[in-house]
């Protein structure tokens, strides 16, 4: 696993205009090619942190730097929201075409990459469908295809599968892991599910609320590829228990 830092966060704080302190002095470094989860209860600022990394929210203090691109945020960032956030008036193909379209790239040039992205999420034959014709899980796949179609160096995911049923969520977790292994991505995955974070990540940043901060930095040093069998291992159960305890401890201290 390459270990050079892709993103360096230094003393990130965010206070909203309302006076709510969403984040206080968050510092960490995300390694190139790693799969990192931000885990914590609602209101711990994990989504805010993700949005700060994406450049959608400006921190009140602190800096986000990208060492591999001379500090600047790369032009390409894949972002997946909790909802699929598709344009209902556009076909699946056109939804995935969006990042290219906004850059002024023609459909003809982008088409092979769009079809490839759709194939990778298993939706090649749904290119002409409209979002309303798809199930919740399929919409989420389209959203992932859109995020990865430009082959961005990093994929930011904001509780992407939280609204899906458990069966679909586990299926998408596996698909995401397979994609992450096949490509050389860095994934930052926001979730409030302990099990999901342990199953997916190499590293879990456990966050606490009011103000939002990183409480624990837990390495999940279990080998990839992970399969369903991993969920049944003692190591998995132990990791989950540790992290749950850490979260409960924080909640009790509040």
């Amino acid at each position, binding site marked *: 696993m390459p270990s050079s830092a892709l993103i360096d966060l230094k003393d990130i704080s965010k206070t909203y205009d309302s006076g709510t302190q969403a984040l206080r002095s968050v510092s960490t470094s995300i390694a190139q090619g790693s799969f990192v989860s931000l885990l914590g209860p609602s209101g711990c600022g994990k989504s805010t942190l993700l949005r700060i990394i994406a450049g959608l929210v400006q921190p009140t203090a602190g800096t986000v730097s990208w060492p591999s691109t001379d500090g600047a945020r790369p032009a390409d960032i894949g*972002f997946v929201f909790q909802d699929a*956030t598709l344009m209902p008036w556009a076909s699946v193909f056109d939804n995935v075409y969006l990042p290219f379209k906004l*850059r002024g790239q023609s459909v003809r040039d982008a088409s092979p990459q769009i079809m490839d992205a759709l194939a990778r999420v298993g939706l090649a034959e749904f290119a002409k469908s409209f979002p309303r014709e798809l199930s919740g899980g399929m919409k989420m796949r389209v959203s992932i295809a859109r995020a990865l179609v430009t082959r961005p160096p990093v994929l930011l995911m904001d509780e992407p599968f939280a609204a899906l049923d458990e069966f679909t969520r586990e299926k998408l977790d596996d698909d995401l892991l397979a994609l992450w292994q096949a490509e050389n991505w860095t994934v930052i995955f926001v979730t409030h599910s302990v099990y999901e974070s342990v199953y997916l990540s190499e590293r879990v940043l456990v966050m606490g609320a009011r103000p939002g901060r990183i409480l624990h930095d837990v390495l999940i040093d279990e080998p990839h590829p992970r399969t369903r069998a991993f969920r049944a291992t003692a190591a998995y159960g132990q990791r989950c228990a540790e992290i749950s305890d850490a979260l409960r401890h924080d909640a009790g201290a509040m």
Partner: protein
Amino acid sequence: MEHSRVLRVVVPTLVGIAFLVVWEVLVRVKGVPEFVLPAPSRIWESLIANFGSLMFSLWITLRVTLSAFVLAVVGGVGLAILFSQSRLIEAALFPYAVVLQVTPVVSIAPLILIWVGYDHVEIALLIIAWIVAFFPILSNTTLGLRSADHNLRDLFRLYGASRWQVLSELLLPSATPYMLAGIKISGGLALIGAVVAEFVAGSGTSTGLAWRIIEAGNRLDIPKMFAALLLLSALGIITFFALTWAEHRLLRRWHESALKREN
């Protein structure tokens, strides 16, 4: 024919025919004078007898209605887009658009007629019909442009979309269902505006259907009144169906309102 179609088409048609038959029979049996209520057959005769002049009037009213409607769409959508681009312009102008809307147009109409002059009556009619028709499009489109999904807005920002791209690729498509709802209301209002304008202008220089109604009323030619009314109604119905059809065509692939539910 499927069941729902029978319900939607055949049943109302039967009710209409039954109504006309009862009307005809009652008028004949009771001997109701024609200047109170003419029988449907008499109205039909009058329509045929006055076909040429009524069609000409229909054309005048149609022209005013359509022009006012098209200008209302252009003006309403255009102004809404302007509002979406500048909070300042919206804050400055929106209250006056509301003033224009809530002031009963009949009370401004004489003023407009004086300003425009009786030698350009059709322009005056057009302005009056436009004032009535444009507001629903403006307010609905303004609402629609504000209703775009905020995550999609973020996504556009993330991809570095220009102001123009945000407008054309995100805001306008999101606003389309709202805009079409406004346009549908305005289609009917443009006709009402045209009729009101003709009533107010009512000097005989305008020869639209509404004026025919007043003229026929003054002459106690009640069958002709009904004939003109029938044509106005038909115009309204056609406008409504045309706009409903257009709305359905534009939204059927994606919008909730145009979808058929199985259950």
